[in-house]
């Protein structure tokens, strides 16, 4: 019999419920601070650790205790270095709850991160390229055809938000290239439907052709059997 690997602490602490706002903040050149709101909707008090990915956005607190069903407002100052590029800069401010019990098999830290984009100004270069939007010309109504698309923001120094209808929006940071592979699940059952992205579009006709071919085959079979039955010579009875 294989030896059992026994882990400690068989009880699982209650789940947490945390909300962070803003989840996405755009800081203008004349703005010097951002206020974050963290809400603990659970009953359990938690300790929150606050970190920033760089020195552009400096939280006023490194950590704080948050009682159950309370909210905490925290200000972070925006400090743009004297030497910087024009355009955008991205910083992430993360609020995490370290595990109170580290002896379990999996000790989980859960974190919510806010994406802060600091608009520095200067000479802004916008040069977004969208290419490779492909959809099939005809697709079966019961399938989810694949869509591919490349969004190239590598020559820009600011972020872009691209609407890819009917799927949603895509954020491209400065210098970022993203190739999207999407499954087109929500489409009309019959008729044409179009994918649009930044002035490009591609249309697919949705036809239930698998079902149609099946029905056609069935009808052909019935017609064939009827024609064979009618073409047999009739028996003559004397």
């Amino acid at each position, binding site marked *: 019999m*294989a*030896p*059992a*690997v*026994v*882990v*400690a*602490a*068989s*009880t*699982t*602490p*209650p*789940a*947490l*419920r*945390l*909300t*962070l*706002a*803003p*989840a*996405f*903040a755009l800081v203008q050149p004349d703005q010097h601070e951002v206020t974050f*709101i963290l*809400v603990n*909707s*659970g009953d359990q008090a938690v300790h929150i650790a606050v970190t920033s990915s760089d020195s552009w956005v400096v939280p006023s607190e490194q950590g704080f205790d948050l009682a159950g069903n309370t909210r905490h407002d925290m200000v972070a100052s925006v400090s743009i270095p004297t030497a910087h590029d024009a355009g955008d800069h991205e910083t*992430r401010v*993360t609020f*995490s*709850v370290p*595990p*109170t*019990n*580290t*002896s*379990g*098999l*999996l*000790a*989980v*830290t*859960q*974190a*919510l*991160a*806010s*994406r802060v984009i600091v608009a520095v100004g200067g000479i802004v270069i916008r040069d977004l390229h969208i290419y490779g939007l492909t959809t099939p010309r005809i697709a079966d109504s019961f399938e989810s055809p694949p869509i591919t698309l490349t969004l190239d923001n590598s020559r820009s120094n600011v972020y872009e*938000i691209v609407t*890819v209808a009917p*799927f*949603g*929006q*895509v*954020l491209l940071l400065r210098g970022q290239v993203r190739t999207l592979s999407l499954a087109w699940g929500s489409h009309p059952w019959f008729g044409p439907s179009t994918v649009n992205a930044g002035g490009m579009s591609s249309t697919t006709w949705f036809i239930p052709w698998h079902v149609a071919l099946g029905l056609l085959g069935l009808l052909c079979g019935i017609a064939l059997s009827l024609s064979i039955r009618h073409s047999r010579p009739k028996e003559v009875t004397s």
Partner: protein
Amino acid sequence: MRFIKSVIGVGLLMAGALFMGVSAVLADTSSQSTTITLSVPASISMTGLATSYSKVAPSGVTTRVDNQMTVNTNDPLGFSLSLTYGSANFNGGAGHSFAASNDMVSVCDATGTFCGTGIAGGNTSPVTLFTTSSANASDQFVIAHSIAVPASQAPDSYSIGITYTASAN
């Protein structure tokens, strides 16, 4: 005749008094309007995760540990969920350990029945588990950890720290 005139006079007086009373009441119920303006920022929330999960895991067997969670956001760009390991090994006492790459992580539906392709754990840099591209009222899912404890692994209590980070896109 004089009696009729008196009655009419008293009636007019009462009507006048009643008119003045009604006017005063109407004057007291004058209204004022105001405006409530709410600024609703993009927000993100996470719920359902516990701070630790424990299970008896026999050696030579793969044991599954489910982390059920819900992520909500009103951000029209959706959200991303990433996973970071605190170390490359599950560590026990007396120097016992085994590689965290024995933990295959997969994203499953809310019931934990249908799961995507697993990725090997142990990466101490954030690995994106999945990304959405639209606002969602409630996205429920299960992160399944299938941990294959090596057959020769010494009996002990092993643990590893992991971090789930949800961020708006």
